[in-house]
């Protein structure tokens, strides 16, 4: 052999021998050619070992050629660009690629974990359910950490992902999933009718396995037909081709997700600013599943050794990359197709013989093999494999179907095996969206059952294995069927072999792997049956068969075959496990798309947002809004700033950006009656130009929102809601209008964003506004508390509400949003001489708590009625019906021992009760203690120079003056006296000032 024994001197349709690429694998430089996959390049370097299995850490090599690969999982890149668990068969190499093997320590060749294989006899399926139970605490502290460390394949990257991702939305008349000859022919047929066709294929190159398929189409080999068809499609304006794009999920109503690997194969693409991955959200009128078929392995003893590959993968390695796994190979098959691999090997100068489990086949390929002088052993199986880190020899034994064990065998030296147990239609995307399947005896596999108008399967995915029949199916997509002249070899029948016998007693100690990655053997599946885990879902979950990262692509049917032989049930009787999305794993980054960091969720900003930011605002998220929590100045800490803001409002004047407050215009002849239905109190009696505070319940009788509503005219109101309730309440009003009181003539228009609104509050508030609007009479007489006026302030058109949430003289000034910043600036400037200060939400909360004003969501929590918070007077007795009224009659809501809102004054005025602290009926040494209620708001009041709190306490209103206890963390007990909820200016003189 030459210097590069595994790279053949000629051949390789995918590689460019002129372009050499160098990358590292486990720290060692490896060179390959442009077009190589990591799998082909590493194999060409003579390395067969690619990974370690999950449970036993057995040495593993390549099995497949593409996305079905289950053993050769590789970590690529480093640091925050590391990506684990990629299939070597899908990684396209480039200069500078760094790759490493996984799940091994200290190295791939010498892996400590492989000791598991020595004790594997003690580790059958589900062994962990039977042990690791004693002593109890050991699971968490000893067993589990050990198991977790051993499990888990690759490692996660470090840090935030530097790459970007994006979503695309696309409609297609027809989506064709898979660009093999079925998909190509279907795309041409469909395109000829003029519809928009989307053709997706997971590989870099269209054609599927055309290059591995025997036959001639119109005088050209199948591969040339595919190349020509792909070229024709590329010129069609109504055909959109996406390569490196896996359709991963097929959901209700032909909604599909396709995952495009945009920049993985070439760092230059990423460097140009392109996303790493792109997720296509596709809606298609018609889905054509042309996903082909997946070759299945055969279960024989030690069938997992490195260099035991699928026959098609060996064929592909030679044809596409000019790489052979070894110099002497054995093809082990139960069907004709794998003979193609023998021909390819022979042509490449590799020694090959065929072991065929069937006693005969009339197929043309078998006859040709014999005629060509290839050693074909019919009625034979591989019964044993020698070698650990590779294959050194196999044993071949005579076999006939149904035979349990091997008596005699002969040893054949070889360095690789190509196996083929037949082909399974790739049904995943067919089944995701509810497609039905049936068992096909000739395939010994499942295939689609009945097609529908909008979902069809063709070619291999439909269980159609001949080229000619595939092309005929594809023509259904066109208006008139195109005729093809196809020559292909006649095929002999396949004969299923679910378990190749070995020496020794049946299935004792021999490892016939079914699920390679998860180390599930035929014996494990049988054990599950024996122990009663008979449902296929039980078997799957008990043994973990089909649950590895390949989701059972190559293992599921072999598993069913083993179960069938163990139980005597037929495969259709056993049934299949559910095919769940995705078809192949895809990145969370692709799912999130661009919605990360600053674009994670939209931020709502008031018109004054930038001013706040420029003036040192500390923001807090309130729903989607960002509101100013406090504006610390120069050397202030947050607490000092809050105190300053509060005292400014109490003693001078302050201004709050209240633009987030919900604003809803309600207009129409029935507006007043409608509001009477919505609020617990009455609005039909409200005078024009007056404001009224209103309470809303939900239908369960619990507080849902509150706010001030003003009457602008007989049929026109403006409703204020809480900031968080704005959208909810607008939708809620609309719902009642449209669905219950459909005869009401009322329009509801949410206008929250249309207005900038500020609370100007404090004893000097009037001075500030008057200075800006000398002609606008806002004197106490002309503009008393709870009234409304329109006019101009500082030249800006305004709606002014004289309402107060601070207890001070207060005007809420609203101006169209675009004028907001101008008006704000004007007021700040005018207020300067009066010592005006902007204040944030925390000062707002302290101010309102000092006055005993409730916040829906703080004082109430969804189980609290208006009566509980002491607002019985606001619940109309006169109105016959309003939302929530009837529920207040339910026995529990009017029952005894309800928690009622009260004020609390701590014994020690310098101590503030913690948020959410619970009071108890009696303090005990240790819990449990009977709880009688909880703090709802608690603050240090700078105005009063002491702490204050509000609380919901059982029968609180009957307990005025009583001292109750709050056992805190750490054993401390705080005592507080129950008072009413108004701590400051009980008479309300200030707000009328």
């Amino acid at each position, binding site marked *: 052999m030459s210097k590069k024994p595994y790279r053949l001197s000629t051949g390789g349709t995918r590689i460019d021998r002129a372009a050499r690429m160098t990358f590292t694998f486990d720290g060692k430089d490896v060179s390959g050619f442009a077009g190589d996959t990591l799998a082909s390049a590493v194999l060409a370097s003579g390395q067969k070992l690619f990974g370690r299995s999950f449970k036993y850490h057995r040495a593993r090599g390549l099995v497949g050629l593409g996305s079905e690969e289950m053993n050769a999982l590789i970590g690529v890149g480093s640091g925050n660009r590391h990506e684990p668990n990629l299939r070597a068969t899908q990684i396209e190499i480039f200069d500078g690629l760094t790759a490493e093997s996984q799940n091994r320590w200290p190295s791939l060749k010498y892996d400590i974990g492989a000791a598991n294989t020595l004790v594997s006899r003690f580790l059958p399926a589900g062994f962990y359910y039977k042990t690791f139970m004693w002593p109890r605490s050991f699971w968490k502290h000893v067993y589990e950490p050990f198991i977790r460390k051993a499990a888990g394949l690759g490692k996660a990257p470090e840090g935030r992902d530097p790459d970007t991702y994006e979503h695309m939305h696309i409609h297609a008349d027809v989506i064709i999933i898979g660009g093999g000859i079925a998909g190509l022919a279907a795309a041409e047929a469909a395109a000829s009718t003029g519809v928009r066709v989307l053709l997706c294929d997971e590989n870099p190159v269209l054609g599927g396995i055309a290059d591995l398929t025997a036959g001639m189409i119109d005088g050209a080999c199948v591969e040339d037909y595919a190349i020509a068809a792909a070229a024709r499609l590329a010129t069609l304006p109504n055909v959109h081709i996406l390569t490196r794009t896996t359709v991963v999920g097929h*959901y*209700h*109503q032909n*909604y599909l997700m396709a995952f495009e690997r945009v920049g993985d194969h070439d760092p230059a693409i990423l460097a140009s600013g392109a996303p790493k991955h792109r997720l296509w959200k596709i*809606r298609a009128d018609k889905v054509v599943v042309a996903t082909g078929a997946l070759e299945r392995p055969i279960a024989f003893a030690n069938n997992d050794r490195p260099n035991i590959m699928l026959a098609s993968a060996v064929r592909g390695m030679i044809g596409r990359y000019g790489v052979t796994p070894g110099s002497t190979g054995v093809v082990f098959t139960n069907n004709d197709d794998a003979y193609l691999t023998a021909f390819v090997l022979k042509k490449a100068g590799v020694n090959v013989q065929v072991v065929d489990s069937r006693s005969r086949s009339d197929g043309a390929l078998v006859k040709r093999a014999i005629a060509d002088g290839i050693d074909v052993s019919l009625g034979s199986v591989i019964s044993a494999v020698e070698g650990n880190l590779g294959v050194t020899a196999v044993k071949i034994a005579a076999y006939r179907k149904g035979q349990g064990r091997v008596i005699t065998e002969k040893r054949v030296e070889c360095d690789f095996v190509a196996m083929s147990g037949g082909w399974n239609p790739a049904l995943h995307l067919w089944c995701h969206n*509810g497609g039905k399947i049936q068992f096909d005896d000739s395939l010994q596999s499942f295939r689609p059952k009945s097609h529908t108008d909008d979902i069809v399967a063709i070619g291999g995915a439909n269980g159609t294995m001949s080229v000619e029949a595939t092309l005929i199916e594809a023509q259904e997509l066109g208006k008139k069927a195109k005729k093809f002249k196809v020559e292909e070899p006649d095929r002999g029948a396949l004969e299923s072999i679910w378990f190749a016998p070995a020496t020794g007693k049946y299935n004792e100690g021999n490892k016939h792997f079914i699920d390679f990655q998860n180390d599930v053997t035929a014996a494990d599946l049988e054990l599950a049956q024996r122990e009663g885990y008979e449902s296929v879902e039980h078997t799957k979950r008990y043994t973990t068969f089909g649950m590895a990262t390949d989701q059972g692509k190559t293992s599921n049917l072999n598993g069913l075959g083993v179960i069938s032989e163990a139980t005597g049930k037929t495969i259709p009787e056993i049934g299949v496990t559910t095919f769940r999305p995705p078809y192949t794993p895809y990145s969370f980054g692709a799912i999130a798309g661009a919605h990360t960091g600053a674009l994670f969720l939209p931020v709502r900003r008031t018109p004054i947002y930038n001013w706040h930011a420029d003036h040192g605002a500390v923001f807090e998220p309130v729903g989607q809004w960002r509101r100013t929590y406090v504006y610390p100045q120069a050397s202030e800490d947050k607490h000092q700033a809050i105190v300053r803001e509060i005292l400014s409002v109490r003693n001078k004047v302050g201004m709050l950006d209240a633009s987030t407050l919900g604003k809803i215009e309600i207009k129409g002849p029935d507006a007043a009656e409608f509001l009477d239905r919505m609020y617990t109190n009455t609005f039909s009696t409200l005078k024009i130009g007056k404001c009224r505070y209103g309470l809303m319940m939900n*239908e*369960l009788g619990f507080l849902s929102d509150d706010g001030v509503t003003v009457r602008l005219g007989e049929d026109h109101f403006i409703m204020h809601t809480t900031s968080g309730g704005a959208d909810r309440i607008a*939708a809620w009003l*609309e*719902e009642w209008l*449209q*669905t*219950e*009181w*459909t005869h009401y003539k009322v329009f509801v228009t949410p206008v929250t964003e249309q207005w900038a609104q500020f609370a100007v509050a404090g004893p000097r508030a009037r001075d500030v506004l008057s200075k800006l609007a000398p002609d606008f009479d806002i004197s106490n007489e002309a503009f008393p508390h709870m009234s409304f006026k329109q006019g101009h302030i500082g030249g800006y058109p305004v709606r002014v509400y004289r309402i107060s949430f601070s207890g001070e003289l207060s005007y809420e000034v609203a101006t169209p949003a675009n004028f907001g910043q101008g008006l704000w600036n004007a007021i700040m400037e005018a207020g300067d001489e009066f010592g005006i200060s902007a204040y944030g939400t925390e000062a707002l909360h302290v101010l309102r708590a000092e006055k005993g004003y409730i916040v829906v969501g703080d004082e109430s929590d969804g189980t609290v009625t208006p009566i509980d918070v002491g607002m019985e007077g606001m619940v109309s007795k006169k109105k*016959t*019906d309003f939302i929530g*009224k*009837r*529920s207040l*009659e*339910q*026995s529990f809501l009017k029952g005894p021992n309800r928690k009622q809102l009260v004020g609390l004054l701590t014994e020690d005025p310098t101590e503030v009760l913690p948020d959410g602290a619970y009071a108890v009926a009696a303090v005990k040494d240790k819990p449990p203690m009977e709880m009688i209620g909880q703090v709802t708001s608690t603050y240090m009041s700078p105005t009063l120079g002491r702490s204050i709190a509000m609380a919901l306490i059982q029968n609180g209103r009957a307990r005025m003056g009583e001292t109750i206890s709050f056992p805190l963390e750490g054993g401390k007990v705080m005592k507080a006296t129950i008072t009413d909820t108004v701590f400051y200016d009980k008479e309300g003189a200030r707000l009328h000032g």
Partner: protein
Amino acid sequence: MIIVTCPVCNASGDETDFHYGGQAHVRRPATDDPANITDDEQRDYLFIRHNPKGLHFERWRCDRGCGKWFHAARDTLTLDFKATYGITELPPVELMKEAKGPWAEYFKARLKKA
């Protein structure tokens, strides 16, 4: 993601462009006779729901379109819409006939009228 078509403005969109409003044809007892509602009636109104596996009748709102509420008949297993109809209307007669369980009971009297 299912596609919904609004019968009012004829806009079609993804389910996220619409708002699901729960079971249709739930009577609010207080609207008719607020003074005489039993606890059972109020419970049924607030909480008891038809919850069939199969044909269901429900309310949707065309959230990002015309904003109107409408009724829909939908299969809760296949998720396919069978019909949409006005918010004050009853479903097409053939669907009322097709309804099973509690829905069949509900439509019985109404079918007689129709």
